[in-house]
Structures are given as C-alpha cells and as structure tokens.
C-alpha cells in the first residue's frame, strides 16, 4: 500500500464525512424536512451552485473514460469533449429564472413535483419516476464500478473490498446529510477537480517536453492524431457534432441537472454560477482530455483507455501530489453518484410513496423512510456493481440519452409553451424512451449521428403534435371548471 498516495485521499474522505454530519444539523432542525433533505432548502449560493452542477455532471467519464479515449483518438476527441462547454451556461440560462419561480410557486422539490403540477397527470408522474429509477440505476452502478476500480488500482486491495470502502464512504454523508451535504461536498469536490486538472496538465506538458515536442511525437506516430478526425479518420463532423445534443444542450433534460436549477436562492446566485460554471467546466473538460492526448508519447502502448489517467498520474508525480490529483476523479465519481442517489431516493420517497402510497405520512415517518430508502438503494447498487460491467462510459451515456429523450421537451416546452399539455408530455416520453431503447438495441448511431438525436426529434414532434391535437379537449375541460 502506497501511503504517500493514500493519505491525501483519506483526508479528502474525512472532510466529506464532516460535511455530511454538519449538514445533518440543518436536516434535524429544519421545519420542512423534504425541502431540506431533497433540495437544500433552496438556499444554494452562486459558487456552490456552479460547483454542484459541474461536479454532478463531470464524472468518471470526464476524468477517466474521456481521457482514455482521447489517448487513442487524439485531438479529435478533445474537440468532441468541448461540446460540453455549453453545459456551463445553457441549462441555467434556458431553465433559469422562470423555472426557479415556477418551482417555488408549485412548491416543487423534485423535478417530478414540477411536472406533476405543470401537467396535473398521474401518468406523467409515474412514467417520470420509472424513467429515473431505471436509467439512473445503471448510471449509478457504472460510477460505483469506476470508484471501486480506482481504489483498487491505488491501494492494491481486492475489488470487492475497494468497492465496499467506496460505497460506505458515499453512503455515510448522503444518507445523513441529504441534498445540502451533496451540494457542499460537491463544492469541495469541484475545487479538487479543478486543482487536480491544473496540476496534472502542467506536469504532463513538462514530462512530455513541451507542447510542440508532444505534437511532433504524435504526428510522427500517426498524423491523424492531430487532426479533428480521429486516429483512423473515422470521426466525422456529423458524428462529433451530434454530441452537442447528447452532452451539450440535451443536458437540460437530465433530472439531476434540472433539479439544481430549482435550488438556488436568488438571481445573483444564478448569475454568478453561470460564469463560474462555464469557466470550471470548460477548463476541466479541455484540460483532462488534453492530458489524455499528451499522455500518449509519455506512456505509449497502454491497451485499456481507463488506465491512462491513473497510470500517468502515478508515473509523473511524487506520491503525495499523485494522491491529491487522484482525489479529483474520486471527487468526480462521488459527486455524481451522490446526486444520483438523492435523485432516485427522492423519486421513490416523494414522488411515488408520498403521492400514492401514504400521502398522510407523519414527518417522522418521512424522515425514516427517506434515510432507509437512500441506504437500501446504495446497497442494491453495491450488489449490482459487484460483478462489474465492461463498458462504464457507454453505460453512463446510455442513461443520459434515455433521460434526455424522456424529459427534455416536457420540461423545457412545458416552461415556455402554455399549449403543451399532459397528452403531449406522456406521448413525448413514451415515444422518446421507447425509440431510444429500440434504436440503441437494433440500429445505433443511425445516419452517422449519435443514437439520441432521432428519439429527441421524435419526442419533439409528438409533444407538439399531440398537444396541438388534444388542445380543444383539455381547454374545454378548463372552461367547464
């Protein structure tokens, strides 16, 4: 066991626990447990808001998977990753103030709350909850595996032990502290990710002998590596551009991101978060993926992309600094996982249990149920992660696509287009998710674009079309009231 590396990581974990328990004081003393546990009391300030959005979004994919692919593909993959810059500003601008105001009006704590009030439909709620639970479960498991593997490669502990340590660490502060703990720890994790990226980028450039030399080495090995087209010229402009939807603007439909657009305290916080978020997310994406490319001349011949980042760090940095830097992907994974856990837990507790199973549950009951559901979810994911799947990054992106196809139009058009109604929303969700699953299984990347593009188009057509067609029947109902 390399204690030089592990010590900074341990310190990092302990800080997370402390924050979790600190947040629990708010949970205990709050008069609205649900609002506090699942939404941090709507009190997030600008810096924390920015960090929590970045941290929730940036995950194992950004720190391990992405650089791993960049190692193989070259600068073309870095180009692709820069589509994600838009997540820093687009979501908050588009959902923005109206969403925050409407959510307060509806007293919505979860995204599903918001949809329920907007469409007044049991089916919208149930379909949404089902989508969240199904798609996020696999995403959480994928991240969990990433966390376990990271600890495994750093400590030499067997995978199961590593996984267990990771699971316990995350569950402690999430179960105890709720959303506020999640947001606060993400603020810390965001800073860690930023600093980690900076340190590693500088060290990598130095180890490679400077950027011009690295570029020369790369083009000597394979000139395609420094073109936008990937190592074998197969990254077409259409394919790469289609990622602007999956990991760029489509992100507005992800519940774990949208819920944060409900959680901040005032306009000032939002404005600050826009700037901070854009800077941080852009820097991390650009930096980490460049590191993946630069690593190639320094550490040639690595077969498994996911190993590039940890191996590079351990090779070119002194142990204690490596520990600090490796806290970054750890932070990214934990911060994504904790947000997803809270999200699924809120779907089960608030949107299904409280809505339909036991609406009159006492506060104490709700508290107990929330704690237990979050804990049990964590255990279930742990069990699923025990036999790790092979394709972490693609599992993650699969869940993104499904969620985006389900939620993007009911949320965004629901906000700005009054004519959108529940029939439009329901058909949009069914068509979006259904077509996504079908296309993903039988005809992926149709027309050379990412699989998500067609379902999003289809769900748009259905949302608009069905809403317009059923317009008279729903407005008639309103007149009759």
């Amino acid at each position, binding site marked *: 066991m390399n204690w030089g590396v592990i010590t900074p990581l341990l310190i990092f974990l302990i800080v997370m626990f402390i924050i979790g328990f600190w947040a629990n004081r708010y949970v205990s003393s709050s008069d609205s447990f649900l609002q506090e546990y699942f939404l941090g009391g709507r009190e997030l300030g600008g810096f924390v808001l920015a960090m929590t959005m970045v941290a929730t979004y940036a995950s194992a994919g950004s720190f391990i998977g992405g650089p791993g692919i960049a190692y193989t593909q070259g600068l073309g993959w870095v180009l692709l990753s820069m589509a994600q810059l838009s997540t820093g500003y687009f979501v908050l601008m588009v959902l923005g103030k109206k969403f925050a105001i409407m959510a307060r009006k509806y007293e919505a704590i979860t995204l599903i709350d918001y949809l329920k009030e907007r469409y007044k439909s049991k089916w919208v709620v149930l379909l949404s909850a089902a989508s969240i639970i199904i798609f996020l479960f696999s995403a959480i498991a994928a991240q969990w595996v990433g966390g376990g593997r990271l600890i495994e490669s750093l400590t030499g502990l067997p995978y199961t032990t590593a996984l267990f340590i990771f699971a316990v660490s995350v569950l402690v502060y999430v179960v105890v502290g709720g959303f506020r703990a999640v947001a606060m720890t993400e603020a810390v994790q965001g800073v860690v990710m930023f600093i980690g990226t900076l340190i590693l980028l500088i060290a990598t450039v130095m180890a490679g002998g400077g950027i011009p030399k690295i570029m020369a080495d790369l083009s000597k090995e394979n000139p395609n590596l420094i073109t936008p087209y990937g190592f074998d010229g197969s990254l077409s402009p259409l394919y790469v551009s289609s990622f602007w939807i999956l990991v760029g603007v489509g992100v507005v439909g992800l519940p774990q991101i949208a819920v944060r657009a409900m959680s901040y305290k005032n306009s000032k916080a939002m404005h600050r978060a*826009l700037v901070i978020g854009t800077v941080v997310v852009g820097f991390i994406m650009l930096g980490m993926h460049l590191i993946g490319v630069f690593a190639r001349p320094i550490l040639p011949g690595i077969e498994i992309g996911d190993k590039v980042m940890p191996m590079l760090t351990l090779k070119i940095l002194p142990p204690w600094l490596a520990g600090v830097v490796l806290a970054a992907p750890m932070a990214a994974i934990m911060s994504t996982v904790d947000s997803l856990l809270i999200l699924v837990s809120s779907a089960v507790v608030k949107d299904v249990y409280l809505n339909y199973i036991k609406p009159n549950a006492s506060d104490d009951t709700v508290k107990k149920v929330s704690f237990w559901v979050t804990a049990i979810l964590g255990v279930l994911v742990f069990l699923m992660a025990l036999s790790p799947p092979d394709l972490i990054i693609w599992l993650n992106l699969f869940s993104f696509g499904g969620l985006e196809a389900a939620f993007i139009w009911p949320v965004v058009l629901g906000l700005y287009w009054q004519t959108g109604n529940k029939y439009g929303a329901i058909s949009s969700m069914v068509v979006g998710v259904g077509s996504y699953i079908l296309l993903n299984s039988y005809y992926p990347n149709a027309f050379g674009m990412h699989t998500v593009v067609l379902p999003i188009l289809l769900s748009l057509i259905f949302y608009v079309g069905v809403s317009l067609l059923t317009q008279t029947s729903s407005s008639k109902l309103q007149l009759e009231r």
Partner: protein
Amino acid sequence: MKHKEKANDPRFKIAKKEAYIGIGLVLFNFIWWFGFAYGMGSAPVEKYSYVFGLPAWFFYSCVAGFVVMVILVIVAVKFFFKEVPFEDEVEEGGSQ
C-alpha cells in the same frame, strides 16, 4: 386564476429573453467551434500551422473558443441579465 398571474408576470418576460440569449450563445459557440475545427482542420496535416505548439484549428476552435465563450457569458450576465426577486409578493389579507 393561476393562468392570469402567469401571463402578466413581468419577470417571465425577462426570463424568456434570457432563455433566448442562452440559445443564441450556444448557436454562436457551435458555429465558432465547428468553423475553426473543420474549416482549418480539413487542410492536409503537413500544411498545419501551430499556435503555442497546438495545431491552429485546435487552438482557435477549442482554446480560443473557450476564452471567447467565457467573455461572452460574462458580458451577457453583466449587461443583459436582470436580477429579479423570486418570492411572490404576498397579499397580506390582514393578520390572522
């Protein structure tokens, strides 16, 4: 009753405008990114020029693009975005 309040709320006009700004920014971002990447990048590799050691297509589309977008976001927020209160003005119906 809810509908009337919704339609006339002046904050929503502001919010809608800001949403359009978001859309405008992302379109600009995409065009910049695409234009430099595939415009300059489609030249043969031997003819590439380099800025700070990076191929020019990459520098302009990704690095400069990043900086430009940050500046635009700052400008948008500072000059075009307005602060609005989120709480509704509650009509006090007398103390209860």
